[in-house]
């Protein structure tokens, strides 16, 4: 047994309202630079839909992740080393997505909106941020938001493939849910295994997957390797970039920007201990539907004295172990089994997990004497508007049983709490049937519904100062050729005007209107 600590995240999809605050704050923090305009380290997709980049889940097209070869051993779907050398893939990567699979980033020609009054209403036209030319918008990072793509993007969603076709286009019975996505910081990261330069790595102390910008040579195999298509290529620096799990914040014990700003409080961050020696074995589980359980089997009980002893021996510090003991991730994923990995069948052992959504069924079910007959929830979930098969294709490699159990549990918890708050009787045996007790249902309710900041985020500080000269890094920037905050003099029109000698009063008059500063 080799104990390693992994920082991971759970997203409670039941509460996601698809507001995109996570994506926007992430973008403001990490990817508002030239070359990174099209990148969304975090994005929110409406499911069913094609997602971003288009049809990223279609691995027969993008060749991401791992597969088992004839001998039952793990192999990158994009080809093993021999295959890459023999087919000269280093000169041209056949499976790499191109910009149109994401979208061509644009801005608007805002200047035309100002100026003299003219006969016609001025219109701001879209301008490509790459070529600077006017362009017709045909695709965007969120083109099919809220089912805007209608049956077209429905049909193209790879998760819909084995769902009865009558559900697909039948709009009376249509369903949707939101799926916020970020890098999964996998235990068996295919991007890391794909990188020829060895620039991609997992941090030993917390498992965050990063791209060493100094060593990246832009060979682009990581983009193909990642089945979630969460490694991007910066056309300006010609290097790969990806979600950093906001490691500078995590090191300080703070949650990532996307989690911090989530208005629905759907995100949870914590540490989980796992057995690194058994990862390869778990990934080689031949049955796709059992991969979720194989991954669960890797996680170690942080309260087990043997595990703690081994963790200390393997260099995990005490604060991390204590955080692992209070980890909301362990509670949801391992103890209650209500959280699931996204597409475990890619065999990367992803570490951003999701609580499946329940809302539509509850709206239908609640108020129909549900407290009196809570067992009605069992047949009801089978006829849920979001088909359980769809959720299973997304979250458990097709294993519907585990998804159903989680939904039963979530629904029963809600019925129990509703009965309690409205002073009705509730037969505690019903809780037992889904594996809950009155105590565990209450604590699950507190974690999911109240979701206090300190319950959602249990993150150890990194103590980096003990091993590295952190003072030297102060003010440093993660990405090369990133001017970071120094961009203001370049782009800030106010500063440019001031430099050109314009008076402060004029600048004020030009830049402050409508109650806000416009730069």
């Amino acid at each position, binding site marked *: 047994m080799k104990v390693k600590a992994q920082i991971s995240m759970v997203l409670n999809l039941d509460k996601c309202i698809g507001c995109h605050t996570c994506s926007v704050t992430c973008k403001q923090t990490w990817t508002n630079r030239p070359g990174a305009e099209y990148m969304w380290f975090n994005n929110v997709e409406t499911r069913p839909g094609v997602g971003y980049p288009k049809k990223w889940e279609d691995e027969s097209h993008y060749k991401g992740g791992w597969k088992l070869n004839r001998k039952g051993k793990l192999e990158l779907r994009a080809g093993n080393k021999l295959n890459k050398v023999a087919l000269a893939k280093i*000169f041209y990567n056949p499976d790499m997505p191109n910009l149109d699979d994401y979208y061509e980033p644009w801005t608007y020609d805002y200047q035309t909106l100002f100026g003299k009054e003219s006969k016609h209403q001025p219109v701001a036209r879209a301008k490509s941020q790459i070529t600077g030319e006017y362009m017709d918008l045909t695709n965007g990072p969120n083109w099919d938001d809220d089912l805007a793509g209608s049956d077209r993007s429905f049909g193209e969603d790879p998760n819909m493939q084995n769902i009865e076709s009558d559900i697909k286009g039948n709009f009376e019975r249509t369903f949707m849910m939101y799926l916020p996505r970020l890098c999964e910081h996998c235990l068996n990261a295919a991007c890391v295994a794909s990188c*020829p330069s*060895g620039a991609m*790595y997992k941090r030993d102390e917390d498992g965050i997957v990063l791209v060493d910008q100094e060593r990246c040579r832009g060979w682009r195999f990581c983009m193909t390797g990642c089945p979630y298509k969460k490694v991007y290529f910066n056309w300006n620096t010609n290097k790969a970039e990806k979600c950093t799990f906001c490691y500078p914040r995590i090191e300080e014990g703070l949650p990532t920007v996307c989690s911090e700003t989530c208005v629905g409080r759907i995100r949870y961050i914590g540490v989980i201990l796992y057995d690194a020696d058994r990862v390869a074995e778990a990934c080689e589980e031949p049955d796709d539907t059992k991969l979720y359980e194989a991954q669960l089997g890797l996680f170690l009980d942080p309260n087990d004295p043997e595990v703690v002893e081994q963790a200390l021996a393997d260099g995990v510090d005490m604060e991390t172990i204590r955080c692992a003991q209070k980890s909301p991730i362990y509670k949801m994923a391992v103890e209650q089994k209500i959280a699931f990995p996204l597409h475990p069948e890619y065999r990367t052992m992803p570490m951003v997990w999701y609580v499946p959504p329940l809302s539509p069924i509850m709206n239908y079910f609640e108020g129909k004497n549900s407290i009196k007959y809570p067992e009605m929830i069992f047949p009801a979930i089978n006829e849920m508007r979001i088909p359980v098969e769809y959720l299973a294709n997304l979250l458990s490699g097709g294993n519907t049983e585990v998804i159903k159990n989680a939904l039963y549990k979530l629904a029963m918890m809600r019925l129990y709490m509703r009965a309690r708050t409205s002073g009705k009787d509730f037969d505690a045996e019903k809780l037992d049937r889904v594996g809950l007790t009155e105590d565990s249902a209450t604590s699950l309710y507190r974690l999911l519904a109240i979701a206090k900041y300190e319950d959602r985020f249990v993150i150890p500080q990194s103590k980096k100062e003990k091993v*590295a000269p952190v003072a030297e890094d102060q003010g440093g920037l993660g990405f090369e050729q990133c001017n970071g905050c120094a961009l203001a003099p370049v782009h800030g029109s106010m500063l440019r005007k001031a430099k050109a000698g314009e008076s402060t009063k004029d600048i004020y008059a030009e830049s402050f209107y409508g109650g806000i500063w416009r730069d």
Partner: protein
Amino acid sequence: MDNVWGYILWVIFPYVALGSFFFGTIIRLAFYGGNITAKSSELLEKKQLMIGSILFHIGIIFVFFGHVVGIFIPKSFTDFLGIPNEVYHMGALFMGGMAGFMALAGMIILSYRRFTNKRVFMTSSFSDLVVNVSFLIVIVLGLSASLIEGTVFHPEFNYRLNLSVWARQLFYFRPNYHLMLQVPIVFRIHVICGLLIFAFFPYTRLVHALTLPWQYIFRRPIVYRKKGLRGRSK
């Protein structure tokens, strides 16, 4: 005058060019290693790149090794093996010509793509454009030197008796520039242009050829890095 120009072109210039190559390479790898990348534009355009890039790279690799053989294997060695001069030259022309045309076709596609594809052109640096144009020039010169000038106009010319000897002499610092004065003009321009490419090689995107990721073949799939052990950047 011939002597002065001969000395400048075939003694001073080659050393300046190669000096620039080695100086630049050392500086780039030692101090600016972090900014070496293949400068891929595959994200922006994929279809033309597929044909162009594969043709060019495979072609240019064969061309490179062809030059190495032509320069470093002396005539005495193939004579010793009993390979007649005609057979050697036919072989060299045939294989070199094939590789050369592959590289040329690839470079024409790549250059067309670089100059006409808006996305690629707008994100190109000046040096990217220079690299494309200079490769086009040097490949055209090389092909016309060996396939036209060497066979039609100067059939008696054998580069292994003078050009290769001079090139080998460069490596032990005793170049005899008189040897180069016997070489036909297109060959000479080709040599100058080739040396120019070496001169700016480390300062452009070409430097990616020196950082081929051999270690990938032998390394374990998942890389872990311990905190504090990361190489510190400048």
